[in-house]
C-alpha cells in the first residue's frame, strides 16, 4: 500500500549520526497508515456521472501517492528535528575555547570520496546518457543540460574568486561574460580568427575590463561596491545595444563560426570529424565536444583557483576578505590584491563567454542582462562563499532544478491536468532560498578548507591546556 518513495532514501542519508532510523521509519509508516485510513472515505472513490447513472471511480493510485508524500514528509520532519538537536548538542567550533578536534570532519571525509565520484560522473556523463537513452540523438537534451550546468559551474567558480575569496561583492559579473562572448563573436566574424586564438584573447580582454572596473571601485566596499559593479554590468549591456556599428545592436551577431576539433570541422563532408575518425556523421559529436570543452575549462578554473589559494596572492585575497586594515598593516598592497582578484575572476568570465558564443553561434545583448549576474551570484552565495564544491552543487541545483520541474508530471495527478509545475519554478526558487537562509545562512558548504594542512596533528585535550599557562 504505502510503497516507500524513492525520495525517502535520499533524505535518510543526510540525517546526522544520532538519528534513529528504525524509529523514524516506524513513525513515518504509522502516519502513512493513518493517512490511508483517512483517504478511504475522502479520496479513494470519486463519483462520476454518466447520463443518469452514478459511478464510483476508484482512485487508489492517488491514495498511494498521497500516502507516500505523507510518509516522506514525516521522515523529513524527523530528519530535521534530529539534526537540529544534534547541532545543539555539539558545541559550535566558532565558540570553542577548548582545542577543537583536528581529525577530519564528516564533510571532509565525505568530500574525499565525493569529489572523485562527482568528477567521474562528470567525465562519463555523455556515455552514461548515451547508454541510458540508447542513442546519440536521444541524449541531446541531457548533454545540452550538462553543458548549461557546466557553464554556470564555471561562471560560479570564476565569480567565487571575486566574491568568495576576495570578499568583493560583484553584481555585474555578466559584463565580463559579455566581453568574452563579443570578443569571440567579433574577432571570428570580422577577422576570421579561430576559436583557439580567440579564447585566450577573450580572457585577456575580460581581465583588462576587470582592471578598468577595479580602479574606480578600489576604495569601495560592501553595498557601495555592489551598486557600482551593478552599474558597470548595465553599462556594458547598454553599450552593446547602442553601438550598432560595431555590435549590430539589439539584433546581435549571428552566424558565428562553430568550433572545430583542433582544425577538423564537425561536418558531414569528406574532411569532417566523423569521416576522419571513421564514424557515422551525427550532429551530437559537436555537442559532446562542447561538453568536454566546457568541462575542461571549468576544471581549469577550479585548478587555477585551488593553486592560487595556496600562493601568497590567494592568501592575500582571503586575508583581504577577513580584514582589510590588518592586511595593510602587514604590508599587503590592497590595491594590487583587489585588482588581481577582479581581473582573474573576469578572465574566467571571458573564457566562459567565448565558449557561450561558440556554442550558440549567436550573441545578443539579451543574454547578458542583470538576471544572469543575479543567478551567478546566487550560485556562489548558496554554495557557500569560497567553497569550490559548494558552488558546483549550487549550480547543479539552481540550473538543473528547473529542468527537473518540467518532468514532475505525476503532480498533475493531484492538482489536475492543467497543472504545469514549471510555472511555479520561481516560487520554488524563492522558497528554496528562504529555506537556505534559515537553515544554512552561510551557504551549503560554509566550512572554509584551510589552504595548508599540517602533517602532524597533535591531539592535546583542552583540559591539559590551562588558561594562563602559555
Amino acid at each position: 500500500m504505502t510503497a516507500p518513495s524513492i525520495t525517502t532514501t535520499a533524505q535518510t542519508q543526510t540525517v546526522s549520526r544520532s538519528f534513529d532510523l528504525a524509529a523514524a521509519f516506524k513513525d513515518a509508516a504509522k502516519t502513512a497508515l493513518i493517512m490511508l485510513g483517512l483517504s478511504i472515505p475522502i479520496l479513494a472513490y470519486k463519483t462520476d456521472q454518466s447520463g443518469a447513472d452514478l459511478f464510483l471511480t476508484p482512485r487508489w493510485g492517488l491514495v498511494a501517492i498521497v500516502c507516500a508524500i505523507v510518509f516522506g514528509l514525516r521522515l523529513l520532519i524527523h530528519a530535521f528535528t534530529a539534526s537540529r538537536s544534534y547541532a545543539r548538542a555539539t558545541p559550535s567550533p566558532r565558540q570553542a575555547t577548548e582545542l577543537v578536534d583536528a581529525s577530519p570532519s564528516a564533510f571532509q571525509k565525505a568530500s574525499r570520496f565525493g569529489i572523485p565520484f562527482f568528477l567521474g560522473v562528470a567525465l562519463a556523463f555523455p556515455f552514461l546518457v548515451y547508454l541510458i537513452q540508447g542513442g546519440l540523438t536521444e541524449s541531446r537534451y541531457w548533454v545540452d543540460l550538462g553543458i548549461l550546468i557546466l557553464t554556470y559551474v564555471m561562471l560560479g567558480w570564476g565569480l567565487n574568486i571575486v566574491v568568495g575569496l576576495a570578499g568583493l561583492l560583484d553584481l555585474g559579473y555578466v559584463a565580463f561574460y559579455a566581453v568574452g562572448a563579443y570578443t569571440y563573436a567579433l574577432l571570428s566574424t570580422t577577422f576570421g580568427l579561430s576559436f583557439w586564438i580567440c579564447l585566450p584573447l577573450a580572457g585577456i580582454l575580460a581581465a583588462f575590463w576587470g582592471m578598468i572596473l577595479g580602479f574606480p571601485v578600489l576604495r569601495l566596499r560592501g553595498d557601495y561596491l555592489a551598486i557600482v559593479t551593478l552599474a558597470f554590468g548595465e553599462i556594458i549591456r547598454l553599450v552593446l545595444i547602442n553601438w550598432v556599428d560595431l555590435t549590430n545592436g539589439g539584433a546581435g551577431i549571428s552566424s558565428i563560426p562553430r568550433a572545430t576539433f583542433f582544425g577538423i570541422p564537425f561536418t558531414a563532408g569528406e574532411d569532417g570529424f566523423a569521416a576522419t575518425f571513421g564514424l557515422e556523421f551525427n550532429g551530437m559529436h559537436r555537442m559532446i565536444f562542447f561538453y568536454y570543452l566546457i568541462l575542461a575549462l571549468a576544471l581549469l578554473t577550479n585548478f587555477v583557483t585551488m593553486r592560487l589559494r595556496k600562493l601568497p596572492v590567494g592568501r592575500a585575497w582571503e586575508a583581504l576578505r577577513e580584514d582589510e586594515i590588518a592586511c595593510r598593516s602587514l604590508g599587503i598592497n590592497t590595491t594590487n590584491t583587489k585588482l588581481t582578484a577582479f581581473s582573474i575572476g573576469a578572465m574566467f568570465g571571458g573564457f566562459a563567454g567565448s565558449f557561450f558564443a561558440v556554442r550558440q553561434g549567436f550573441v545578443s545583448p539579451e543574454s547578458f542582462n542583470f538576471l544572469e549576474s543575479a543567478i551567478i551570484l546566487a550560485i556562489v552565495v548558496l554554495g557557500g562563499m569560497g567553497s569550490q564544491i559548494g558552488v558546483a552543487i549550487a549550480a547543479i541545483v539552481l540550473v538543473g532544478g528547473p529542468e527537473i520541474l518540467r518532468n514532475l508530471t505525476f503532480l498533475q495527478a493531484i492538482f489536475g491536468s492543467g497543472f504545469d509545475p514549471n510555472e511555479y519554478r520561481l516560487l520554488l526558487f524563492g522558497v528554496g532560498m528562504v529555506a537556505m537562509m534559515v537553515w544554512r545562512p552561510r551557504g551549503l558548504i560554509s566550512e572554509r578548507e584551510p589552504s595548508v594542512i599540517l602533517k602532524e596533528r597533535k591531539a592535546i585535550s583542552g583540559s591539559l591546556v590551562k588558561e594562563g599557562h602559555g
Partner: protein
Amino acid sequence: MTAAGANIPMQSPQAASSRQPLLSVRGIKTYYGNIIALKGVDMDVNEGEIVTLIGANGAGKSTLMMTIFGNPRAREGTITYGGRDITKMPTHEIARLSIAQSPEGRRIFPRMTVFENLQMGASMNGMAHFDHDLERVCTLFPRLKERLQQRGGTLSGGEQQMLAIARALMSRPKLLLLDEPSLGLAPLIVKQIFEIIKELNEKDGMTVFLVEQNAYHALKLAHRGYVMVTGNITMSGTGKELLENPQVRAAYLEGGSH
C-alpha cells in the same frame, strides 16, 4: 617637585647620545575631517628601547600609532624612520620597512587558521625564514603551537592577542608597534604578555612602542614614557619618573581621586 616643574626634561639617557632616534615624530597634526586629533606631537623612539604612550580614552594615542603607519595621514609634520621620511608613504610600504604593528582590537583573520595567520605575517619578506620564525614564535607562545590548525576566530581573547603579536613578529621587525595589547584580558594574561614584550626587548634587542591604557604595567615595563592629553604630549620621562610623578599618579594610577 613643583606643579610648574612637572615638565620632566625630554631627553632620556639614550637620546642624549649622538645616535639618531630610530623613529622620530615632529610636529604631527592629524585631522579626522575638520576635527583635529593630534595637535602637533613630538616624540622619539630610540633603538633598543621600550617606549610607552599612555593617556585617557580619546586622547589620540591610537591615532598617533595609526598616523605613524600612514592611515590616517598626517596633515602637517614629519615622521622619520631610520633616517627616512615616511610621512607620505602608503601603509603597506611602511610595513615593509621592518616596522610591524599589532593594531588595536587584534584584527586577526578569523576564518583562517593560526598557521595561515602567521603565514600572512611572513608574506611580505617572501617567506624566506618562515620555518625558523615559526619555531621562534611557537617558543614564545607555546599556546599557539598547540593551535596551529585551529581557526583564528575560535581562539580565546588572550590567544588572539598572542596571535596578533606573533603575526607581527613573523615579519622580523626592528620596531614593533603594539596598540593596547592588554585590552580586555585577564590580569594573569596581561602579565604574561608584558613579560614576553620584555623578553623580546632584552633578548632580541627589539624596539617596542607600546600604546596602553594600563598605565601602571606599561610604565613599569618601559624605559621611557609619554603622556598624551587631548592630542598633545603633556609629559615625558623615564618610566620610573612618570610612575612617581604625582600628576600621573593622580590622573592614571589612582583613579583621579586626588
